[in-house]
């Protein structure tokens, strides 16, 4: 007698469980279940005693559980952004400093060059200034002499012209 009672109770429990699952499924499809209720559904459908009439839900909950186990740590190693950033900033630092060095070098070389030129000019100028003036003046005088000499020569040409005209007119 007690065995029969126990069996009845068990069957009753299973029936209750099933109706419970069914109402939960209805709520689930309406998106009205709580997380706890959804976990009840999941444990039921991942168990071995799912009633055949609800078997279409097995792959669904299997899928959810399977997807949840997908993890990055096994196959993927992410580069942290600051590691990338550090490398990049190191490189940009090198660029920056080389740029500064280059511009400094240019400035220094220009400065030295102009300084040298100034030196050569200022060293020679006081010594040869008057002499240069004298020389240019001499040169200009020579030029004017040459030009006036040339001009004198031109008067002969005039006379040739005159005599030629006289001859032709006669």
């Amino acid at each position: 007698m007690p065995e029969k009672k126990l069996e009845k109770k068990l069957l009753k429990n299973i029936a209750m469980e099933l109706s419970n699952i069914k109402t939960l499924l209805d709520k689930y499809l309406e998106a009205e279940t709580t997380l706890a209720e959804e976990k009840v559904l999941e444990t039921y459908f991942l168990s071995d005693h799912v009633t055949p009439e609800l078997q279409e839900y097995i792959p669904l909950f299997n899928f959810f559980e399977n997807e949840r186990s997908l993890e990055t740590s096994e196959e993927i190693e992410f580069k942290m952004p600051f590691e990338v950033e550090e490398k990049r900033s190191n490189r940009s630092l090198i660029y920056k400093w080389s740029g500064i060095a280059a511009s400094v070098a240019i400035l220094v070389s220009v400065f030295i060059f102009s300084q040298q030129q100034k030196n050569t000019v200022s060293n020679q100028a006081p010594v040869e200034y008057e002499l240069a003036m004298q020389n240019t003046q001499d040169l200009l005088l020579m030029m004017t002499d040459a030009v006036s000499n040339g001009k004198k020569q031109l008067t002969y040409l005039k006379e040739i012209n005159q005599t030629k005209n006289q001859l032709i007119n006669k």
Partner: protein
Amino acid sequence: MNQQEFLVFIEPIKDKMYRLSVRLLVSKEAAQDAVQEVFVKLWNKRDTLKKYDNAHAFAMTVTKNHCLDQLKLKKNNNLRIVHSNYEDESKSLQKQLEAKNELEIVTEIIKDLSEQEQTLIQLRDIEQLEYEEIIEITGMKPTAIRVALSRARKKIRKEIIKKHRYGTV
């Protein structure tokens, strides 16, 4: 937020970010790239991260938006490389394993859902997040979330029954 704090912040959600990216972008390589880029975005915002009530939800929002942007780009370029690669893979797997086959069928069904429905299924049924968090991540209204999620769940069930009755299984 310094480097150490950033690592601590990232650790508990990087898997969730990756899984959401895989759901939306399908290819694991694309998902990895996406998460990598989202890390950079978050790192650049590291000083404002602390201001958010739920910085983890914010990280998920950035991930979701980044993936949707990637999908838009791909659609604009008419590139479906990722998808076709995946389909080939699933076909060969279907031949190999019966048990895997059922999971692949569900994967295919979910792939045909809208991006919004995919996101909701991912956040609720796979990540088992509370609705408050889903509201924060998606910026959707509670009723809209329930309506879309209910629609998605019903669609998946319908398709599974269809495939079981008429499919090759």
